């Protein structure tokens, strides 16, 4: 019984440390190094941003399936403006604006019209993706169209010369967003109200919480997060492609769920989401270094998510 409870509580965490120890033993000189972890932090930065802001809606028991398309769309919007000769800041602002509008539209459908988040964001997923193709003409926008100041952002960072390390700007940006989301969710009345809605919408309503407005705005936040991730992606690959974000949605949701297995009552918490993202990123990095087939990695990831959830308190067996 005690054993089982321990697994329930710390299973995912123990698993995470197990993975780290495994890689450290098998890759003695290259895995557990500052450089490698900086690498990982940069590789996961885009997924992390989406997962962090996805946490915001999942706190209310909602979903946003459209984040991947939104990331693609935002990247395309910026790139098209760049290619038309607009300055970088205009491209970025426009992309963020698209993120807000798209997010508000999701929120409107979910909270005002009352469509299930699953259906509403399934619809907008298709719409945003269509827009991304439409605006770009299906093309990848690359080369001279992308200003080098924009793409060099993803390649630069803060040098710590004493340690011969460079902290990439992408990682710093992800950290910043982690802090913002953490601050919003854990340190503001707004965030605490979101948790109340997720925990017991009826109680929240009875306590006079403005459920509709809060849901609306939370979706807007998630939209902006997706747009930022799209910009980061475009900067990293110095190009924009109308399908670039398509892998983000499922992975972000998986990361939040992995995180939820670590929290006390199975509620989403952004710091645990970070751990969820890290698990996915470390697996990717370590298995690549061990020359493990990338397909086995995929099977493993699915299996680990299922295992973590099965043993956690999110899963309630009916007696």
């Amino acid at each position: 019984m005690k054993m089982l409870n321990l697994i329930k509580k710390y299973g995912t965490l123990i698993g995470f440390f197990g993975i780290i120890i495994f890689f450290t033993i098998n890759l003695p000189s290259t895995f557990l190094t500052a450089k490698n972890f900086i690498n990982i932090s940069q590789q996961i930065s885009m997924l992390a941003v989406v997962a962090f802001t996805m946490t915001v809606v999942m706190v209310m028991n909602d979903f946003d399936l459209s984040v991947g398309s939104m990331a693609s769309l935002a990247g395309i919007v910026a790139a098209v403006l760049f290619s038309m000769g607009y300055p970088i800041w205009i491209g970025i602002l426009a992309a963020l604006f698209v993120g807000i509008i798209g997010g508000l539209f999701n929120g409107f459908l979910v909270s005002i019209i009352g469509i299930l988040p699953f259906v509403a964001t399934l619809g907008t997923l298709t719409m945003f993706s269509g827009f991304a193709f439409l605006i770009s003409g299906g093309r990848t926008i690359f080369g001279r169209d992308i200003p080098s100041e924009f793409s060099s952002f993803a390649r630069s960072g803060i040098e710590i010369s004493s340690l011969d390390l460079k902290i990439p700007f992408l990682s710093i940006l992800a950290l910043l967003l982690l802090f913002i989301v953490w601050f919003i969710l854990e340190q503001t009345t707004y965030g605490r109200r979101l948790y109340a809605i997720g925990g017991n919408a009826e109680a929240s309503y009875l306590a006079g919480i403005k459920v509709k407005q809060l849901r609306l705005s939370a979706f807007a936040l998630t939209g902006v997060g997706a747009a930022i991730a799209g910009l980061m992606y475009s900067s990293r690959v110095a190009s924009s492609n109308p399908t670039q974000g398509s892998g983000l949605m499922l992975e972000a949701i998986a990361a939040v769920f992995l995180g939820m297995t670590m929290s006390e009552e199975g509620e989403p918490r952004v710091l645990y989401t970070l751990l969820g993202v890290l698990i996915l990123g470390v697996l990717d990095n370590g298995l690549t270094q061990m020359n493990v087939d990338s397909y086995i990695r995929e099977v493993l990831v699915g299996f680990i998510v299922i295992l973590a959830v099965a043993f956690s308190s999110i899963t309630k067996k009916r007696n």
Partner: protein
Amino acid sequence: MKKLELLNLTKSFSNFKALSNVSIELLSGETHALMGENGAGKTTLIKVLAGILKPDQMTMKIDNNIQNIYSSIQSKNLGFNFIHQELNIVSYLSVAENMFLNHPYPKKYKTIIDWNKIYKLSSNALKELGVTHINVKKKCAKLSTGDQMLVKIASCLIKTDTTPSLYVFDEPTAALTLQESEKLFKVINNLKKRGAIILYVSHRMNEILEISDKVTVLRDGIKVLTDKTSELSKEKIIRSMVGKDLSDNFPERTGNINENIVIDVNNVHTKYIRNINFKIKAGEVLGIAGLSNSGQREIFNMLMGVDNIAKGKISFMDQKYEPTSPSDAWKKLISFVPRERRKEALMLKMSVKSNTITPHYSKLSKFFFLANKKQENLITNNFSKKVQLKYENMDQSIYQLSGGNQQKVVFSRALASNPKLLLLDEPTRGVDVGAKLDIYNLIIQLTKNGCGIVLNSSDLSEIMGMCDKILILKDHEQYKILENFKINSQDVLANFYESKKQ
């Protein structure tokens, strides 16, 4: 605020009048008890005050000035505080945060939450209740129901800019232990001394007599009594709650109890109840009574195979009976009418027919798997007639029926297998007088055919009017069985209200 008056409050749900023309006057420094049977309209009145329900008609006066309530926020701003009947706890938030659910969080530098202040304010509020054992940083999920109730109560004591003037408690002690209740009473006394208005709802007679200054009794949405508590007695209150013509409500029991034993429950324990012992003969009605949440639901769970039997044994129709799921029970011809029909019995968006035949598909199938539409229609028609269901056609969705008729569908489902044992958990809840009578007649008909019946009801008159013997539960344990001929209302009430005190 010195005086709060509600005048001519009427509230109906579709055609059903939950409150008609109720007027009530609440004074500062007074604890006003609101009493009445289940469904009398107490909670409805409270929800109107809280701005959650919109009344059909009402005039509210605060210190003789007319005041309207349009929303829960407005009600809060008037300084009204509520402990609602359903425990509205967000279990994964901390105790402190639950207490701040309806208050703005204090801030540092106007931006970040001042957690220290929150913890301090909330533990102070708990201290005011005399509660020191609850850590306000703990998650509410970790607390007992009683402690959660204390948290909810304490949350009304949090100091904010509007000084609270009205405290409304809807059955706060239902889940509390004796000591916890005593603490609460002290707090209420404190509040009273400070000039607050207290509106207090409870089914527990002793505490009403102990702490209230005035009592108002509602019956079927009509105010039947308001008086000083000192002028009242327990008997008088009960009589006005239940109504004088109590006995007229119940049809004559005819037919004999057969000597064949339908079910013999021999010292059974499950994870949740202990020492259950009873026999039911063919045609006999066993009543189950006790304070709410004393194990009533768990008896049905045991009989239906929802909870496994841990100790003891049951024999049903002279055979060993060890159900592991409700499907075992239905197969043996044990039928069940669950307590909460919307949650536990009905598929609201599905048809009368589907709802009637749900447990009987296997019996009605052709070649084991084909749906037999003819039989389905026939059964639905027959049993809908039998329960005198008022409906347009059997493909009509259930939610279009009135509450009473919904309940009749649940009954016709239970009868459709011609059961040997019928389990009824609060079968007349939210059902009007006419439908009630229909249901009672059905029960009597069944007993004539030799069906055994287990009837749980928090409506005492129903238990007394319908049952041959009564099993009294106390703290999830069988307390005693009262045989029919000895039963009078005083006896039962004594067991009800006082058993816990001993």
